[in-house]
């Protein structure tokens, strides 16, 4: 199945907040290394809940688990704030000091690659 173009946003969730002090745990991983998509987008991509998808932007690519949230309009993907989302957002603050954590153009596609655990994800930054 081909990928689809989406708008990526990020933000807080309650479970992410409950694990602010336990980011190296499974609970955090399960909650944050994921993306929420509208059911029709999931259908388009041929993914079911907990399948892995690759999200690619101009700034990088990251693999996360797919979850359904029909509160999202079509073409909008939400990844909870955290290391996985930040692998693909822009560091450009446009002179305002604020990176673009929301509203990033992305491409989502089904993938067989595995989701990187957080420590490994951090290691990708170490040249």
């Amino acid at each position, binding site marked *: 199945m081909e990928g689809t173009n989406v708008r990526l*946003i990020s933000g807080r969730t309650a479970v992410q*907040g409950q694990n*602010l*002090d336990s980011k190296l745990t499974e609970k955090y991983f399960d909650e944050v290394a994921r993306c929420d998509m509208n059911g029709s987008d999931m259908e388009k991509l041929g993914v079911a809940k907990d399948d892995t998808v690759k999200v690619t932007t101009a700034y990088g690519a990251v693999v996360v688990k797919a979850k359904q949230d029909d509160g999202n309009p079509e073409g*909008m993907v939400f990844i909870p704030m955290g290391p996985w989302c930040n692998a693909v957002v822009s560091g450009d603050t446009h002179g305002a*000091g604020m990176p673009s*954590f929301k509203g990033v153009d992305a491409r989502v596609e089904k993938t067989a690659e595995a989701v990187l655990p957080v420590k490994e994800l951090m290691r990708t*930054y*170490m040249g």
Partner: protein
Amino acid sequence: MVEVTDVVCSLCGCVCDNIVVEVEDNKVVKVKRGACSVGKSKLLGHERIKSPAIRENGELKECSYDEAIKKAAEILYKSRRPLLYGWSSTVCEADREGVELAEDIGGVVDNTASVCHGPSVLAIQDVGLPGCTLGQIKNRADLIIYWGSNPAQAHANHMKRYSYVSKGYWTSEGKKGKKLIVVDVRKTMTAKMADVFVQVKQGKDFQVFSAIRTMLRGHEDVVPDEVGGVPKEQLLEVASMMKEAKFGMIFFGMGVTHTGARHNNIVNAIQTTRAGHLYGKWTIMPMRGHYNVTGFNQVCCWQTGFPYSVDLSRGYPWYNPGETSSTDLLARGDCDAAMIIASDPGAHFPGAALRHLAKIPTIQIDPFANPTTEFADVVIPAAISGIESAGGVYRMDNVPLRLRKIIETDYYIPDEEIVKRIHAEVRALRGKEGE
């Protein structure tokens, strides 16, 4: 077992202060009431960093506090342009030590507002902010608007304590006497509670503010049939509800600070609030994320004159977000050492910034291990503010409260003391070199 009342939460910007816990054997064993699930989670505790550590050959090796503090001081002393970042999850006493340290070593001091409500501060510097304390809303507000904010997930007690669900002097009926409007790009948990949900196209909040403002100023005829994905009828409905409100409140969050026009969104939000003020009492408030992000801005501002992203390398404060903000400094490779305290850029900064953070000597001061720990060359575990140490904080509405100490720790050291000791070591190094 001891029951402790009036516990002040040290998690989010709500800073709920009516929490009741049970303490037994020097441990919080139960949260009886007052805390939301997120605050409860903090109070009940998580696994801690067991010991200070210094990275050798890629691995963190345990050491004493003295050794870690000395190593941290060395890093800062040798650095030509250190970044001292974080501060939002510790107390004002630590923040004050931090600003003093930054000034002494000529560093850049910055807090999480840089990636959160910094744009709100920039907007305030453009147009000011018509605001109030949360109790005003509890007692008076009959129309609440959450714009780009999802308190059901991010500030779980907010509506219950302060806004939509709360009861007060003129609001004794609670929800029944109030209306809730939620503006967001997707139907969040908060949106599901709303009387009116306005679904705006991602990045188009600026236009929607302009349209509502135009209507409040009596020029609805120039507004097109659809603005930012919102049909004109719905915009008219919102404007009409705003006109009828006796006391209206706009709470806004990252939905408008993180996107598109950034601080210009907030300027527009504030001007829209002012337009509402032509009809009734209207106020606006940023939903500050961490329990003391506001406090750092207060401390930094009264001490340096500027609220965040302050470059002290010239010996006097220099403020220019976009130049002196942390992500910019890191993305440009413009700092050569970092002290990260009470925050987690490893988890919350864009990759472009982390590539540089990974390269430079980094000190981490935190009770808990997190993604930043992977980059840290020195790790110094701190006492948990609000549980193991007391101190001052500022709630999202600038109300100052004092965290309580509810259990003892004979091992962990409070942030304030760690920073103080690092500073003392820096001075000692300077003394040795005869400066």
